[in-house]
């Protein structure tokens, strides 16, 4: 890709856009933001469960990515790199507020909710909120956003085995909470 080529910016790959941004292009990063903001928003909101906090996290992350774009050397997908920055921004924010506040009971909008399924989904959200950050972040990436384990490991900066164990523990906790574990009564909520 030559910077001089007048290809529509929307046709450029993420890598090309990031390279253009590093070279000083005014519009390249805006296009990256446009492409990935919804996915990053979803990851952040599912991780921190608070729209205001999620907005702060996504903003922190995108600003960090904007300023540190030259640190990207193309060894992973741009989306992986962005995920990593956003998720870490979320975890940083969560750690900062953890001593004084629990995760809010934010109910994710669900355009498909009907009858009993609504209850199950809300139960899942509730159970997710009680998982340790690491487990929740792993489940959000792997099970909710279909991110491969290896990529999730890169995003969270841990070993693949750690992702697997966190997912396994998180799923087991969710199963218990939902009453899916034989012999274990689901926990009654207030």
């Amino acid at each position: 890709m030559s910077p001089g080529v007048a290809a529509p910016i929307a046709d450029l790959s993420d890598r090309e856009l990031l390279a253009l941004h590093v070279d000083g292009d005014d519009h390249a990063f805006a296009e990256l933001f446009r492409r990935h903001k919804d996915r990053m928003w979803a990851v952040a909101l599912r991780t921190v469960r608070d729209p205001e906090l999620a907005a702060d996290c996504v903003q922190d992350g995108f600003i960090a990515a904007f300023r540190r774009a030259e640190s990207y050397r193309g060894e992973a997908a741009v989306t992986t790199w962005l995920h990593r920055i956003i998720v870490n921004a979320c975890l940083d924010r969560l750690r900062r507020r953890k001593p004084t506040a629990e995760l809010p009971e934010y109910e994710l909008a669900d355009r498909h909710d009907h009858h009993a399924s609504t209850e199950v989904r809300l139960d899942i959200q509730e159970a997710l909120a009680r998982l340790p950050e690491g487990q929740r972040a792993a489940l959000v990436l792997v099970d909710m956003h279909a991110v491969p384990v290896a990529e999730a490991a890169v995003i969270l900066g841990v070993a693949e085995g750690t992702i697997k164990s966190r997912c396994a523990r998180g799923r087991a906790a969710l199963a218990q909470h939902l009453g899916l574990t034989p012999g274990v009564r689901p926990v009654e909520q207030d």
Partner: protein
Amino acid sequence: MDESAHTPEHDPRVRDPDGRAATEPAPPAHLDGLYGLDGHEVADDAPLTRLDADVEQHVRTLLAGAADPGPMPDAVSERISGALLDAARLRVDPGPLSASRSGSDAMGTDDADHDTVLAMPTRAVRPKPIYLVAAVAAAAAVVAVGASALHVTKRPNGAAVVGDTYASGATTSPPSPPGTSGGLHIQLSTTAYTAGTLATQARALLDHPGQPIRDLAAESPGIGPIATPIGLEACLEEIGAVGAADPAPDAVSADLATFAGRPAVVVVVTRAGASTAWAVERSCTTGAPGLLAGATPVP
């Protein structure tokens, strides 16, 4: 997805997001591992109770079908876009120092990307950025002296420039800074000027000016007052490029770039058809010219 969820492995080299070593001791047995949903968090390093495969798959299915948060709300999108615009206005050519910084960061090869991200204050509590204050001051200065053609725009080549047109200083133009006529152009670029090529590179600056720097960036900390008409004028006076006894220049161009590998400003003053270039440090001002290359005739 290739995942064997029943084979938890802890890597002793890593720490989990809570800062615990992954191999730290498990919690007491009475906590029974993961069963902490009654108000307690499930320990990340607790003993793992294996789920029946069907149950696990059911949980995964439920998670995959969990509520979609939907697109980013417009208000959030606009807010972040605004923050990115602010960041863009602060972008300057980092100069050769950037090479050593970027060279150590690689995706997945060090801690650069998973270190703590410096959080920006939330919009509600964010103090007014100092550069905005400076920008307002710069804008006021621009209005005061009438140099209205100050803009800042990043360019694909890494440049951001100032003054896209050379105002003629005619009566229809706003008044210019003392000592110059209306032809003022200030830009940011990645041009690497050298002593040996200064003359030809200065010619190229005159023949092919970049986009002018936006006024909001004119006094950002990374650029300095030399990117403002008043600041530039002070520098020009200090290096002797303009003076009270001299006729006003027809045009002045300033390129915030590098000279001999260091951040610098190359200024070119055109008077009566002849152009002369200087290279100065970006801090160039009254009493501290920071001259890097003296008057150099431009072909």
